């Protein structure tokens, strides 16, 4: 069974229907890249997967738990769903180490010592060991985003969601963040990535999903989507971005 199973998902903001009928199954260890124009609904879809947006109808199951249900213990399920934001959203009043160890400690999943040991290990993985005791404002955008990835990984999630993780970065910093994500993908993390980095999608994704006007218009392996797109709208979009 799929790690993430989305059935007939619809989402409206007032009169505006952003997601019209989304069906999607993501398998364990799969890396999915969601592409599409601004306003196509791709970020909204991602945010429905950890209930930052409530679905208007339909279901989203993660690990067999329906997170859209009225009785869903959303705080518990979110612990297994890591999220990385476009704007990093690090906590400015905490050091890098505190940013990473804070949630596991506060939620009493780990002792302070365990959580900090894990945080140091994660910082090593994102190549920022020496930044443990600085504050986020002293880091570059690329470094902040790598800390944000480490912070999400500190919860030991089953799935990682990335919401345009490189869109707010200066061009020279995109590479270092994508490298961390690629490493994560190679280690077998289940990942759903909303991105404008077509190169990354081509190279790392197992499956690319093209969303337009609230529908999944086309999906398939990157070779197919980029090499031989079938749908008119996919072709139009790719012509603009490639």
């Amino acid at each position, binding site marked *: 069974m799929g790690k993430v199973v989305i059935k007939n998902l619809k989402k409206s903001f007032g009169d505006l229907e952003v997601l019209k009928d989304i069906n999607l199954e993501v398998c364990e260890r799969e890396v999915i890249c969601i592409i599409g124009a601004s306003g196509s609904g791709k970020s909204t879809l991602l945010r429905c997967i950890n209930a930052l947006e409530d679905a208007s109808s339909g279901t989203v199951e993660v690990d067999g738990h329906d997170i859209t249900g009225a009785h869903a213990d959303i705080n518990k399920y979110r612990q297994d769903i890591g999220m990385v934001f476009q704007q990093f*959203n690090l906590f400015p009043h905490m050091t890098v180490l505190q940013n990473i160890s804070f949630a596991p400690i506060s939620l009493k999943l780990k002792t302070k010592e365990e959580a900090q040991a894990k945080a140091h290990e994660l910082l090593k993985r994102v190549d920022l060991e020496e930044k443990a005791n600085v*504050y986020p404002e002293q880091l570059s955008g690329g470094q902040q985003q790598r800390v944000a990835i480490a912070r999400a990984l500190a919860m030991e999630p089953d799935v990682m969601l990335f919401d345009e993780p490189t869109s707010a970065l200066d061009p020279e910093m995109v590479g270092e963040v994508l490298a961390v994500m690629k490493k994560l993908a190679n280690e077998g993390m289940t990942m759903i990535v909303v991105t404008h980095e077509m190169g990354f999608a081509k190279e790392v994704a197992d499956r690319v999903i093209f969303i337009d006007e609230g529908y999944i218009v086309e999906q398939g392996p990157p070779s197919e989507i980029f090499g031989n797109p079938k749908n008119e709208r996919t072709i139009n979009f790719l012509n603009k971005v490639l």
Partner: protein
Amino acid sequence: MSIPELIIQTWPRLLAGLGLTIQLTIISLIIGGILGLVFGLLSVSKKKAMRAIAVVYVDIVRGTPLIVQAFFIYFGIPAATGIRLDPNLAGIIALSLNAGGYLAEIFRGGIESISKGQMEAARSLGLPYGMAMRKVILPQAVRTMTPALINQCIITLKDTSILSVIGIQELTQTGRLIIANNYQAFQMWTIIAAMYFIIIMILSKISKRIERRMSYGKSSN
């Protein structure tokens, strides 16, 4: 009589008045702070009914003068219920409710000034709303609120003088009583004004120092 002579003659009473002024200020700010936090949190709630409660409270406080609030609590409520309040207690209730209303707005502004992404990041890690508010949003909000909070402390300190109208012997009322005996209005009001001024200047200096220390990661540099 000269001002130094008057000070020598009246300082025990003046100090007692000042002491009560400071006491009223501190107690009202503590209670008002709790009220402000509670109603501030209500006013950023997702639930409309919660927000409505906060709006009503803040509007009543802002829409009526403190002197009327004090009269209402000290004279109005006993007239309706027969329960007579000690003037100091009535004063503290009026001043706390008043400060609470303004502090609620300060808390609301502080919380709303923190980017939405902070709450989302905290929630996405699995933190419940209350914990995210307490550990992520409020610590940041309080930093941005600091100047407004200190301003409210100064306002509340000065507002204690209004409580002289219900007979509380804080600094202003003490001055009036002394003048009723010695008729030295010019000198006495000069002394009283200077006492308020000095206390508030000290508060302002402290607040400047706190504000300077409050930027992230810079305190250690």
